[in-house]
């Protein structure tokens, strides 16, 4: 009997986590290069034969829509690949390509982290080719590093649009012919509002139903305690 209560409570916890995730997706509906999370429910069999549903939140690395900005250092990757960013905590990866040039001439993210691959950039007219080759006033200024991963879903989000790779995972440099970098564009968040809103309704209803199940379990338990064994 107590099993029923814990199953229902577990379902409520799962839906809470799902709702938290949806809120984060919705909060980032206008965040450049943001990749939404999706909730995967899984029926697990654990000890005691009691089914134990778990929810996993996995990042969906689908392409986000591209917006034209006409700023040369706004870079969007069409298809696979991540820009490589050098932070204090090591190498990070991002799809948010609104870059700037620091006073020292480094290509950097808006947080001031260096983007790997670019040489020193003097002031002038900047152009970035499809392969990520930078040129300033027609003079070559390095190539922006773009890497791919075998399984991007294993990347960890570290905030500020950055991803970190777990220790046992290595990146591989993307071959030039597969690169598709667009200068003057930014990749929008891949959050779809309609999906998130319907999921939010579903999560709320599932939460409500689980609560009802928990309450009726509670009532049955109450009846059991108060009536069974009553004599006369």
């Amino acid at each position, binding site marked *: 009997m107590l099993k029923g209560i*814990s199953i229902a409570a*577990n379902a*409520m916890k*799962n839906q*809470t*986590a799902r*709702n*938290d*995730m*949806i*809120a*984060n997706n*919705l*909060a*980032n*509906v*206008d*965040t450049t290069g*943001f990749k939404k*999370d999706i909730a995967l429910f*899984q029926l697990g069999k*654990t*000890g005691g034969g009691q089914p*134990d549903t*778990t*929810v*996993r*939140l*996995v990042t969906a690395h689908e392409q986000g829509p591209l917006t034209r*900005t*006409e700023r040369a250092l706004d870079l969007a990757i069409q298809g696979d690949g991540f820009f490589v960013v050098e932070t204090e905590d090591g190498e990070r990866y991002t799809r*948010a390509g*609104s870059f*700037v*040039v*620091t*006073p020292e001439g480094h290509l950097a993210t*808006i*947080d001031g982290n260096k983007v790997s691959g670019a040489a020193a950039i003097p*002031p*002038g*007219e900047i152009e970035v080719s499809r392969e990520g080759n930078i040129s300033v006033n027609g003079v070559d200024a390095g190539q922006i590093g773009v890497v791919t991963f075998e399984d991007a*879903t*294993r990347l*960890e*989000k*570290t*905030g*500020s649009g950055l991803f970190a790779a777990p220790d046992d995972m290595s990146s591989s440099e993307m071959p030039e012919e597969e690169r598709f970098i667009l200068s003057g564009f930014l990749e929008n968040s891949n959050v779809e*509002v309609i999906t998130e*809103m319907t999921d*939010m309704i579903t*999560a*709320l209803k599932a*939460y*409500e139903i689980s*609560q009802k199940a*928990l*309450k009726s379990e*509670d009532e049955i338990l109450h009846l059991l305690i108060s009536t069974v064994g009553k004599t006369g």
Partner: protein
Amino acid sequence: MIRALSTASSGMQSQQVFIDNIANNLANVNTPGFKKSRVEFQDLLYERVGPVGASRMTGSADPVFSQIGHGVRLAATTKIYNQGASQSTENPMDMMIDGDGFFQILLPDGTFAYTRDGALKLDSDGNIVTSSGFQVEPAISLPRETTDLMIAGDGIVSVLLQSEQEPAELGRFELVRFQNPAGLRNIGHNLYAETVASGPAILGNPGEEGIGTIQMGFLEMSNVSVIEEMIGMITAQRAYEINSKAVKTSEEMLGIAANLKR
């Protein structure tokens, strides 16, 4: 209590800043030399959670773990320095920079500021000043007997004096550029101040090394695109609304949880 509450409120706050920025862009749609700003959002930190809901350890290491985010923050407002449209004014004191450069302005406190607004004027002493009366650097002053003013694309200022046949050269405009103009600070009056992020001003002559040429009799209009801003406004308003729904949903969930206890 519920992460979603604060997450959604961060979303609402960000959308509000988005609207604030659009309002400022739209307010300056007719300001000469105005450069629009863009807000940039970034996701906040993530919390690593085990498989949610698992009441027992399964023993095997998870190939994928779950992370729950905490919302969004405003990372930066970036100035977009695209060239604005040019407007012919036929006023000889209106100047437009066709290129990346800025005019250098000497402020009364002795520091320099920079502007793209070329609606220049003359003060009572014949000095070339901005609309707000700040001196353009290097200082150029026109003699009283000037009948005609000419400013060449390379910035050389020459005047025709009343009694003369040949134009006399008075000086040359200098322009500055920055390694990272997005790092300049707005100080109002269409002026920018240099910062650590922008790097020091790099002085140059008009027409050299892509710094831009000076077009006399034209003004650079604001580079704000009304349609773009209106679309942004619609998006921001809806996003704000949607985030408020997330607040409401979380609130309902809390209510349901509170109802558990008889």
